[in-house]
């Protein structure tokens, strides 16, 4: 198993203790395309933060590829995030004063890769996502879809074990959303990238092969969706 969560609990102590995750058990294998679905307040964001090593959990165990992720120093957590995980965010989170190619290069910079090498690699990834011509453009000169593709290139460039996508279509129109989801599933199918999508949209979830429903901090149904029939709005559409 690539990802294993065993009885993970998380409580926020902001005045009144809030038990957000109540014993999460979850296993995700290499090459899976999974969505985590839940309404707001269900704990899915917290789960995503823990999966992404952006947040700590209180009890339980979390393994990535057999490595226990617990009580890490900030420096080590940063290093794991850099090497193991690629992030795709709802609001793209590109750095505004850096060009597309510079944004894509950034994770490699933190790995200590040399200038020329990382530039060349970044150009390669941008090319693969059809953005080579936009390499020298700044994020505010690009459309939402283009920005998200730059973000995907940035997530892929370190060849991470997991891609974590947090509402990747949340800021996109339905056509672009569809393109982005197709891109993700293509990456999953053709390159075997493990992708976890967190969403509250059933249409988005329907694009994935497995849907994990989370509600009130516990995992409910785990739906096998290889047929992509989960959406009540029909196959291959993302209803906004």
């Amino acid at each position, binding site marked *: 198993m690539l990802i294993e969560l065993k009885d993970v609990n998380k409580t926020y102590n902001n005045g009144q203790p809030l038990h957000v995750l109540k014993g999460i058990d979850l296993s995700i294998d290499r090459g899976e395309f999974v969505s985590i679905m839940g309404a707001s307040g269900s704990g899915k964001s917290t789960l995503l*933060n823990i999966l992404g090593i952006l947040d700590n959990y209180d009890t339980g165990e979390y393994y990535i590829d057999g490595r226990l992720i617990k009580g890490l120093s*900030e420096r080590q957590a*940063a290093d794991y*995030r*850099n090497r193991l995980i690629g992030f795709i965010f709802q*609001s793209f*989170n590109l750095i505004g004063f850096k060009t597309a190619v510079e944004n894509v290069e950034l994770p490699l910079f*933190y790995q200590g890769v040399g200038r020329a090498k990382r530039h060349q690699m970044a150009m390669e990834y941008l090319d693969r996502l059809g953005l080579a011509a936009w390499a020298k453009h700044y994020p505010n000169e690009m459309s939402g879809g283009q920005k998200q593709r730059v973000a995907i290139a*940035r997530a892929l460039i370190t060849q991470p074990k997991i891609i974590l996508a947090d509402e990747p279509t949340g800021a996109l129109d339905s056509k672009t959303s569809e393109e982005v989801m197709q891109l993700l599933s293509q990456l999953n199918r053709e390159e075997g990238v493990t992708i976890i999508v967190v969403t509250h949209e059933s249409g988005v979830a329907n694009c994935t092969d497995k849907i994990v429903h989370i509600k009130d901090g516990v995992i409910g149904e785990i739906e096998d969706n290889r047929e992509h029939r989960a959406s009540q709005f029909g196959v291959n559409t993302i209803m906004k």
Partner: protein
Amino acid sequence: MRDIFTEIWESIRRNKMRTCLTGFAVSWGIFMLIVLLGAGNGLMNAFMVGGEDIATNTMQIGGGRTSKPYDGLKEGRRIRLDDRDVELTGGELFSDHVDQVISTVSTSVTVNYGKKHFSGLMEGNFPARQEMEKIEVRYGRFINEKDIRDSRKVVVLSENQVENLLGGGTRDTGARFATLSFGSESGRKTDVASLLGEYVRIGTFSYRVVGITKSDRMSDDNLFFAPYTTVKTIYGKGQEIDDITFTFHGLDSEAENEAFEEQYRAAVNLRHRAAPDDNRAIWIWNRFTQNLQMNKGRNILSTALWIIGLFTLLGGIVGVSNIMLITVKERTHEFGIRKAIGASPWSIMKLILAESVTITAFFGYVGMLLGMIACLVLDKTVGQSTMSVMDEQIAMLVDPGVDLGVALGATVVLIVAGTLAGIFPARRASRVRPIEALRAE
């Protein structure tokens, strides 16, 4: 390294105005520091001129007035030094410390050359005087042994005096030039050296001019030199002399000097039937202790100037720190992104610290450069002017400016200051939590 500077440049470029305004405060601080230290140095140099020209291990003794009754004599009695004081000084009693003793006699005279004249003080002196007072002879020579032995009628005048005699008009050297005179001393109109070998008339005798000394702003323009024996013979005052100067050795601390002075004073005072502890009966100018005190004063002044300068700089540092805090606040989201994709806290901290040090150092150097230019300007203007204080020409500033040591010191100060200014904002930046920063949008 290049990457980090690219990042800094990007950050600064986005906030040019803000960075420049902040940088100005730093520039101003360093500018003030350099100008203060430079002017302070100039001031100290002005005090030291003359001082540095004189061998520091000399004491000069002159007669005064008694301030207390002693041995049945009333106070207020005038004490005149004489030949026996010279013998006493050079004698057995002080032979442990005293090396060479010379005495002078002087008299007010009028020096005539053709139709020109000036009045001054003719000081009968010994050849050794030149070494003791570091008198610089520009043309010809100083008084020599033969002059003394034969009581020759020769004089050593100063450049200004010669200029007077040659054509500067009849000028009483007692009346000074304008209060402030700009311009350097090198621009003499007359050929001063031409008077060498000529005869001037003093009283009823003719004296040959054998030497011409350098006149600087600090020297007493009234004074010129003749052989001791000549002056003593012609204007004979019996055994009386004007002052005694001697060199000494083996007195290395202020305490040792004081002890020696006390002993010496007692011996001379008793010869003149004055109270041994009466410190007005004779005057002692000890160049060594004067020098020590001067150095002490110099250190105090420069410490004070450093403190003032550093406090001025502090304002600039607080400004940088403040602006860095704002920068960090504005960039919180960006730092969140960086951390999410793998930036370590230290790499973020480094970014802010480097930016802070860069801003401080760059604007600091601008300030330093301007400060040094200001020192040069000071040197060219105020530094060339003199002030007339109690009939003495006093240069206000001599060679204002700072040396390499101060520049290096200021560089260290700047880097430390930049780090200090950055450290608080940098820590804040490094503690940005990615989840919160990313949610903040």
